[in-house]
């Protein structure tokens, strides 16, 4: 028994039943604890990961669904674009408890990485898949604006 997939660029074989939710495999088998459990029902986005570069809820995906696919978690996002995002979060104090932030980071990274000229409205709309309860929403949206400005100013994310 074992499911083969690629996580954060490295091939892994997870020794768990194929029906195991992806989030449990990531957190408990692979010790990637940055992916957060929030609701288990695709409502809050705390568990967002990238599967073949598309944002997916890891709480409802099963291991079998991602066999032989590429999974990227918050721990795997360390490029220059991630750096721009981190700086923007810091500058805008964009978060309070930070529980929702890993999932939001994954979605934002995806939006900024896949569009040549990402528009604020599109990025903000993508955050519709996420909830924040501390009320850091406005600060997070300010961080999005700041990151877009940095990108527009030519900070390459190549």
């Amino acid at each position: 028994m074992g499911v083969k997939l690629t996580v954060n660029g490295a091939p892994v074989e997870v020794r768990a039943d194929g029906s195991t939710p992806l989030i449990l495999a990531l957190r408990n088998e692979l010790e990637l604890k940055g992916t957060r459990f929030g609701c288990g029902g695709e409502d809050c986005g705390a568990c967002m990961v990238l599967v073949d570069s598309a944002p997916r809820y890891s709480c409802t995906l099963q291991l079998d669904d991602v066999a032989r696919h590429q999974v990227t978690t918050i721990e795997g996002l360390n490029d220059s674009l991630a750096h721009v995002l981190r700086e923007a979060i810091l500058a805008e104090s964009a978060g309070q408890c930070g529980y929702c932030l890993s999932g939001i980071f994954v979605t934002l990274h995806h939006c900024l990485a896949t569009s040549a000229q990402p528009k604020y409205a599109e990025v903000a709309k993508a955050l519709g898949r996420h909830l924040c309860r501390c009320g850091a929403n406005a600060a997070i949206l300010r961080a999005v604006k700041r990151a877009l400005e940095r990108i527009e100013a030519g900070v390459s994310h190549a």
Partner: protein
Amino acid sequence: MPEFGSGSERNTPLTERFDLSRPGLVVLKTGKVEFGQGILLALRQIAAEELDLSADAIVTVSGDTSSSPFEGGTVGSMSVETSGHEVRDAAAVLRSELFDAAARKLDVSLSEITAEGGEFFVAGSRSKETFWSLAAEIDFDRPLGRSAVPKSPKHYKSVGASLPPTHLLERLGGGAFIHDLSFDGMLHGRVLRKPHPDARLESVDADAISGPGVLRVVRERDFIGVIAETEQALATSMARLERRCRWNGIPDDGPRTPLDILANAEVTERVLRADQGSSGPKPAEDGQTLSAVYSKPLIGHGSIGPSCGIATVSDSGVEIWSHSQNVFALRDQIAHVLGRLPQDVIVRHRLGAGCYGHNGADDAAMDAALLARAVPGRPVRVQWTRKDELCCEPLGSPMRISISARVREGRIAEWELTTRSGTHMQRPGWGEQVNLLGPAAASVEFATTVQMDLPDHNGGSKNAVALYDFPQHVSYEFAADLPFRLSALRSLGAFGNVFAIESFIDELAELAGCDPVEFRLRHLADPRARRVVSRVAEISDYSKPCGSGFGRGLGFARFKNTGSYCAVVALVSVDETVEVQKLWAAVDAGLVINPAGVISQIEGGMLQAASWVLKEAVPTDGTRLIAESWKDYPILSFAETPEANVEIIADPEFPSSGVGEVSLGPTAGAIANAITNAFGMRVRELPLTRERLMKAAFEAE
């Protein structure tokens, strides 16, 4: 008044506060805990200021019953007010002791010594002595005393500066939250919650629950839970358990809403203030009179992360990990329920997801402790489901506020307010009861039988007295037997009371034919109150007309009438949807430690209040809570998020006051008034949904 008497450390020794055994670092021990509000950063800044260190050189040990000073709970926006003060005094003592030791050791006079970064300088030249080389010279066991004088705010360098929240970036990875803890041999457990507080477990087919990875089914009266090897095995077995349990005793009590139940509840009445009689304004007298009734529904905490706790129970002791707001009270109740001595139980705090009051954290820890008894020596981790959160966490009480007043010659001449509410306090240990779900299900001995609110001007009567200068008669009708589990939720009764007061002030301003800002200022002598009201009107262009379908509104309060001052303006649009476009706040919290932290708290409070005002009411069927997912209890989304702009009026002449809860009531008033201005009609029942507005318009025709 704090919700729980904060511990005093006046006679405690320095060793309970500081540890200098790690060169280059000062360990600051605190009983206060972090839950996203930034308190640990603020306390580090305060200590760093007194010691002329960078905040990075201060590390905290927080909320550990075996090593932190007893400081009560992290509640009531009191941490900077009380603990901040104590940390400042203690750091001043440490500094003074270190300087005395340096003078002795270097054989120079105190006036020749300075310190920077923990290193001592004599007449400007670096000496070989540091805080850490001299630590051994200090008697850390001597009681603190209050002899050392803290720095004058005029010389502050670190306090008052915004520090970047680098902890946020650290939390992006794994390991930061209690949910991320993992121990050798750790098992996973969960308790099947009763479908109703009155429900009794009639029968369960426990054999049918066993399966691969299921270790134990634990049953004690109505308490039933499973311990499994993995989270996946636990989830599967819990689903089976739910199908195999038969419950009885669930009342069928019809379509009454929590507010119906409150309206018909038996109450005890207390008069909070009586400048005038309570017969209410008589229409026969001169001037104009007005009466109105406002309400707020049952609301929830809705933390994004579910409650979590880990327990290991063995013969030698009990070790608990929890995101409780009060690790000491939790320790005492766990010891009580498990029949242990408090000193045999250690509760250690770990960060949970955002905490806005008494949520399920303590329950989850107690669940873990009760289950862990079945597997001595092995850690048991409990994590609630989203449905558990929605249906079993303590809730914010419904409230009903009636106000009548007389306006004469442009001023409020009489004001009578009656606020009605269930309790806002049912924390572990409150009223000498356990107040936790697991023990209550396991034994009648541990059931909560008496609901008791906080003392006057706290709980349901917090901010029931208006800060304005007019004669008031204010009373509190406390309903002690509401059939819901109610406890402290951010700002407690202040949210409902300020919503009602600020709405009614606007109604009276209109009656008096006066601009609402001018009307407020007319009744506010307190210069700090006047300043935040005037300032927020200014930065929001309050008096500028806005287009059709748009409206501005203002709300103001001084939290508890003794805390921070906050005024909020909302700009809303009412069309196909009711939207808050923008929020402005002016806040006066006295001496500000970390401006970025204050802005974050004020703004977070405004957005949470916007969510409460526009959307939230816990769905019920009679007395049963029925939400299954976030879809049944929607909260403010990113698409609905207004822009927010906070201005701090910092006056170091006044002592620091808390900011965690101050913006919620004023925001409710501001949004309600703005919607009324945009829509032309007032709805007095929260939440102010489009459906409610349409219904009001329909009924008016």
